[in-house]
Every structure is written in structure tokens, then in C-alpha cells.
């Protein structure tokens, strides 16, 4: 099996071959023979030579995936090179109008911009309150505020469009 695995933004080509009791594994130019066993769901114990690694897979409902090795945490995305879908999913860009969506259920407590304002990428746009915390949502890109879809005091659901930046 062959995968493109993106670790912290860097893509690695991984070739896997299942052996008798080990995995033959080629990561980029590196050949490794891994003794890998599950000890629990999402937890692998891997031995490479004498070195021991416990690798925990952290998955969030948003589909993000991280590999935890000891105190280190690596964002990871696995793509099957033959699959177009994953290509497309990973090939997102910051072109065109961007929606700013509510990342959580909550209440709009403050709107910091007006329509037609120019905004920088990362500039604070709207403040939403959830889990008893106020959170500032920032602009996904540099551009012009095209539309503000909610008013202060409004209750929003995750995925609701709040602001569109052109």
C-alpha cells in the first residue's frame, strides 16, 4: 500500500508492506521494519530496533487527526495518491469570497466591523460567546467585508454563516 502522509504540513510518501509479524515500511528514502501492535483502539505500540514508541491517534469530529508520540503532537493527513477526492480536499485555496462560519453554538455578543470595511487576514471580526467564554473570530483573509449575516445578540448554530469576506 502507498500513501501520501502530510505531517505538520510536510508530505511524505509512505510505502507499507505487511510481513509475517512486522511491517516493512518505506518513508521517503527511509527503510524501516516495524513491530507494530494495537494495545487499544487508536493506540499503537511500535518497536524499531530497540527503540519503543507508543503512538496515539487523536481524532476530532471535524476530521482532523494528530499523532501523539510522548509529548510531541503531529498533525497528520493521510491521502491515497490514487484518490482524487483527497487531492481535492487537501487542495483548498484562499481564493474568492470566504465565509466566516460559526465554529460552535453560541451567541453573538459584538460585531467589530461594518460592511464594506477593509480587513486584514487574522483581524478580529466578531465576538461569539459559548461555554461561558467570549471568543473573537478572525478574518480568514485580507479583503473587504461583503456581507454581515447576523446581528448582535443573535444565537447561532455551528456552520451558520456570520460574515462573508470578498
Amino acid at each position, binding site marked *: 500500500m502507498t500513501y501520501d*502522509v502530510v505531517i505538520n504540513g510536510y508530505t511524505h510518501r509512505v510505502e507499507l508492506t505487511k510481513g509475517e509479524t512486522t511491517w516493512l515500511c518505506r518513508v521517503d528514502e527511509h527503510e524501516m521494519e516495524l513491530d507494530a501492535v494495537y494495545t487499544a483502539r*487508536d493506540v499503537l505500540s511500535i518497536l524499531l530496533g530497540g527503540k519503543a514508541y507508543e503512538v496515539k491517534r*487523536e481524532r*476530532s469530529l471535524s476530521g482532523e487527526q494528530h499523532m*501523539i508520540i510522548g509529548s510531541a503532537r503531529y498533525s497528520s493527513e493521510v491521502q491515497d495518491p490514487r484518490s482524487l477526492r483527497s487531492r481535492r480536499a487537501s487542495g483548498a485555496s484562499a481564493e474568492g469570497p470566504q465565509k466566516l462560519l460559526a465554529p*460552535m453554538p453560541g451567541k453573538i*455578543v459584538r460585531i467589530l466591523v461594518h460592511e464594506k470595511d477593509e480587513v486584514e487576514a487574522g483581524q478580529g471580526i466578531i465576538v461569539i460567546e459559548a461555554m*461561558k467564554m467570549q471568543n473573537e473570530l478572525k478574518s480568514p483573509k485580507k479583503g473587504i467585508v461583503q456581507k454581515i449575516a447576523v446581528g448582535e445578540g443573535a444565537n447561532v448554530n455551528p456552520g451558520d454563516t456570520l460574515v462573508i469576506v470578498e
Partner: protein
Amino acid sequence: MFKRILIANRGEIAVRIIRACREMGIESVIVFSDVDRRSLAVRKADHAYNIGPAQASESYLNIAKIIDVARRSGVEAIHPGYGFLSENPKLPAACKEAGIKFIGPTSEAMEMMGSKTRARQSMKKAGVPFVPGSASGLQSMEEAERLCKQIGYPVMLKAASGGGGKGMREVHSPSELRSALESAQSEAQRSFGDNEVYVEKLIVNPRHVEVQILADEHDNCVYLGERECSVQRRHQKVLEESPSPIVDADMRRRMGEVAVRVARAAHYTNAGTVEFLVDSERNFYFLEMNTRLQVEHPVTELVTGLDLVQLQFRIAFGEPLPFAQEDIQIRGHAIECRVYAEDPDNNFFPSPGRITRLISPSGPGIRRDSGMYEGWDVPIEYDPLLAKLIGFGTTREDAIHRLQRALYEYFVGGIKTNIPLFRRILGDPDFQAGRIDTGFLDRLLAQKQPAFDSTSDEVHIAAAAAAIFAATEPKASLGIPNANAATSSEPKTRQHISGWKSQARLETLR
């Protein structure tokens, strides 16, 4: 001792109190909202009563409903925990009326300390050191301008009934004053139903050090050393420790004696905490008194060897304190990490949802006070505190290494937590040297993370592991197979929300 008590709270603190009840042979009665039917507290309690919908105002903040359950279940006392009604004098008042013992101070003491301005006035009399500021709420913009000029900028605006950093604003120049005052007042109104705001001299990068006190109903009052709480984000404590790296025996005694004076001046009873600001010359100023059990009480328990919740029960039952001031010995060092359901990679946004995997640390010197379990859905409606991880060591250095080891073992899957943040804090040279103040965490978060080496062996292992997971668990579900309802009472909403959430997250990530 009490036969049966009610716990008017939820989450890890409800579990903490239930455990104390069980250890003392007291039956525990828990109240819960619709979304907390499966909470760990309901699992562990002896009795459990639903008190309505998720919104706190209709459940955990509803005094009438809580008193009603207390009556029906025949409890002798109510423990409020922290947050929710714990500092609302109406609850002890309602308890008194219903002939139920409130495990905490009298409503009078609570009221007096609850209003920062009234507290100032009476503490002044008791000769307690203060940060210069207005002794009463600001009546007008004009008064605000005059006072700030007189105190001298920078100043801090504070909600009179405030707490937890809500309704607080820093003001560095007259031009910022009006907007700051308005937003502080509106937030105070929203958070506490009272828009009274007062002003204080802003001490730049102070330390936040607090003293735990215990007062019985027989005029005995002792202090149990201090807690250093300077590691904060948006005025929210993130990590606490005892003892404080800058407090020596003499300073401990002086702060402790002031704390006891504060408590006595308020005719305070039961457990309480006196908060101080400490400036760079180690002068300390009275900030406020928290008239409840603190989130961070475990660090004091570990260095004193006492159980504060059990002592709260004894005091409320009318027993005298079983020890005198000279019997209290501080030994070793303890540090607490507050594990929140929030995403450190994404601006600390709340991260509710199902905990699909939980591997918890244990072993020497590790205490875990947790309200979560594998398969539980973290509700969206409440404070994101999931658990507290507390490390004890012979020295501060030992305690830090303990916690680093425990965090190495800690794994929460399905939702995001701030565990990685603690790895950063505990590994930071300034923190390790004890060079912390209330600005420490913001400075740390502003620092660049060390550059990432994409060619290390560990990265190759991570890539290989990701591939092996993909090859062997292609579509392993995130749910817990058997953790579903025996009856069809599983809240549908959760799944719905999750669906939305994932889409939302994906789009915003572009």
C-alpha cells in the same frame, strides 16, 4: 455528622464532593439538568434528581428548584461547590428559611464580600493593605475621569459583583476610558445582573497569590498557606501551585495573619480564600475574598495533608477545627493543571463533543480530580473545565517533572483539550525558575514555537503510524460501540451538532 446532603453543582467538583460524602458516610444527593443525565456525578451519587433543561438559569441557577429537591429528598445541608450559586447570598438565605444548613459562610458575610466596594470599606477599618482606588462604584463618566486622573493611569475597571475576570478592563489613557467603562458595565450587567463598576490603580504584571483560610463557628480561624495563581489567560487561572516560589516563611505568616484578620472582620465561617496582588517588591495588597471552595483547593490539600471538603462538612456541622495554627505544616510542593475542553491550536475555542478515547495518568505523586470518562459527551452549555491534574513532589522541581511525566501519559481523544499548553508552560525556563506574573502566559503564547524538523526519526514514525492506522482501521467509528442508551433517550441534537460542527470547522480552516 450529616446523614444526607445535596450538591448544587456539576462536573469534577460535584464528583469531588460526592467522594468526600462517601468517605464520611454521608449520603449524597445530586441535581442534574437534561444534558447531564450521564454525568460522572450522577453515576457516583446515591440520589439524583433532574431539575430541568440545560440552560443554567432554569436548572443549576434556579434556587427554588434546588430548595424543592432538598426538601423532597430530606437533606440536612447543601454544598454549592464553586461557580453557579456558590457566591450568591440568596442561596444561604433560602437555606436558612428552609431550615437547611448551607455549607459555607452566612449570607451576610457573603454579601459583604460579594460587593467589592463594601468589602473595601470594612477591610479598610480592619487595617488591610489595599491597592489605591475608588472605595465605591462609579456614578458617572465624570467621576470616573476625575478618579482615574487622581489615581494615575494605568488603571483597572472592575465589576463590583464580579469574579472570574468578567467585567474587568485595563485603561492606559483617558482616551480609552469611556469605551472601556461602557463595555465593563454591559458585561457586568450581562454576567451578574449588576452594572456597578469601580476603579483601581493597575499594578503592571503583578503576581496573584491567595491564602486559604478555615474558620469554624467557635471563633477559631487558621490559614493553610498560600497558592500562587499568576498563570492566567484572560484573567482565568490555568495553573496554580503551593507554596508560591516567592513566599518565604515570614511573608507566609504576614499574609496569613492579614487573611485571618479579613475573615474575622467579616465574621466569616467555613472555607474561604483571600486573594492578594503582589508587586515586584513583594508588597501584597488585598484584592478580594472568595467566599467558597476554590477550584485549586487540591494543591493546598497536598502540601498540608488535609481534606478541605471534609473539613467544610465538619465546620458546617458545628464541630470545632481539629487543629490549631501551629499544627499546620507545609511539606513538599504541589502544582495543578486545569484541563479544559478548548483548542490551543485554534485560539482556545471551546471544544465540546464526545470523548472517544481517554487514557489517564496515575502513579506516584499524581492526583486526578476528573468529571469526564470515555464515551461521555462534553455538553456545550457549561464551563469547559473537564478535570484537574495535580502533581506533588518533594521540591518544586520534582513536582514539575511529575506533571511532565503525567502529561506524557495523558490522552484525550475526540475533543480538543489544552493539555499541550501545559507541556509548554512546564517546559518554559521562566516558569521553571519561578519567574511568573499575571502577564507570563500571554508572553509565552506570543513566543514563536521552536522550528519543526520534518526529517527527524519521530516524524518518520508518525508518518508510518498514520499509514498503519489508515491501513488497519480505515473507517473505525469515533463512537463508543456499546455506550448507547438502554432506552432511546440519547439526545439527538448532539449528533446533529457534531455534523454541523465538522463542516463548519472544515470551511473555516480554509
